[in-house]
């Protein structure tokens, strides 16, 4: 099948890449563009490890075609760092010990990044339902919730 040229912004940089229509966005980002922060856990839209931001929404990049990103804006965990400064969410995950093995963390961070823009002052219950599409096999979630709470607080007072 003929490959297509697509362009989009990845972490604020213009990207031009040649893809097959059937290629999933997560594969193009990890394999062609070498941004391996976004992980692949299930490849069946269940675990949330591949979560990234596409046009201002959280999506599971294992269930979006790369060609669908044409003309769009993509943000991955690599794009959270700005001017060599960690994002308040990254600081909070460190401070609250919001990870153990770290496999789910990029997806958690990217979902939390969008969630806190949708709801900057969430209750604990709102965080739990807002983060419900991301699975973690290590932490038991408590510290992840705490990290999101801490980040919300720090971002509000910043």
């Amino acid at each position, binding site marked *: *099948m*003929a490959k*297509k040229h697509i362009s989009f912004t990845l972490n604020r940089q213009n990207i031009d890449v040649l893809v*097959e*229509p*059937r*290629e*999933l966005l997560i*594969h193009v980002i990890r394999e062609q563009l070498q941004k391996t922060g976004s992980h692949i856990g299930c*490849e*069946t*839209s*269940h675990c*949330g490890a591949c*979560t990234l931001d596409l046009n201002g*929404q*959280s*999506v*599971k990049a294992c*269930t*979006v*075609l790369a*060609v*669908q990103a*044409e003309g769009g804006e993509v943000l991955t965990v690599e794009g959270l760092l700005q001017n060599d400064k960690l994002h308040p969410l990254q600081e909070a995950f460190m401070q609250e010990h919001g990870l153990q093995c770290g496999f789910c963390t990029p997806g958690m961070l990217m*979902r939390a990044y969008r*969630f806190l823009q949708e709801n900057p002052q969430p209750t604990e219950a709102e965080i739990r*339902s*807002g*983060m*419900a*599409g991301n699975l973690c096999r290590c932490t038991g979630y408590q510290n992840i919730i705490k990290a999101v709470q801490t980040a919300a607080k720090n971002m509000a007072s910043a």
Partner: protein
Amino acid sequence: MIPPEFEYHRPETIDQALVLLTQHGEEAKILAGGHSLLPLMKLRFAEPAHLVDLNFIESLRGIKESNGLIEIAAMTTESQLITSPLLLDKCPLIPDAASQIADPQVRSRGTIGGDIVHADPGNDHPAIMLALEASFVILGSNGERIVPASGFFLGAFDTQLEENEILKAIQVPVSVAGSGHAYCKLKRKTGDFATAASAVSLVVEGGVCKKINIALTNVGATALKAEAAESILTGQTLSDLLMEKAVEKAMAICDPAEDLRGDREYKIHMAGEMTRRAIREAFAKATGGG
């Protein structure tokens, strides 16, 4: 897992989409949110040679009201349903049900049209559509037709939609004074389809149930309208005795398949329980107690 090869089309108008669908006939499939279709393609259960992506057609998104009807364009996503002030005010059952579907990421892609047309017995919108007496605006190369939700669902993954027709919009009546709605869905965990679920929409006047619609999810090949249960309650004041009779009638039409979510007996029992809860909740809302 990567889908099989296909050619990708990105029309920007409905007319362009119809031309592509006609041109490629049975080799073409519509791509909406992709959260049912792409998983099926990864598994090779679907192998369309052409995908017609509706995501870039502006006129297929949005929610508006005119003449007592709310019209929801088919590509409106679950997240957009959940946050729509118009729906929250005038048709709260839809945002309520949408918020019980999958998880936030899936809901930012999945569309109401895709959920209806896919017609998996586990899809939630079909029962909601039956409970709300919705109609579907369908577009084909021969023009537009409007089909009521009742009768639209023919079997598992089978509807009255003809090959290469587009579901353009969903019409639902604005809810009237004294109405109450509920969708009670039992699921094992977030992101799971219903073990059983029940949608209720009713109107109460002076304590009497003037009208009630009850529809069930995932306990048959299609969403099921529990008409015998509805007749028990119509024109009556709600009592424990009538409630139990209605629940019994609702359970009698269930014909679920046994799977990891439970055996038949359990699922039928749960469909009864979800119906009991949904009727109570809808009644409470209609009478100001919810």
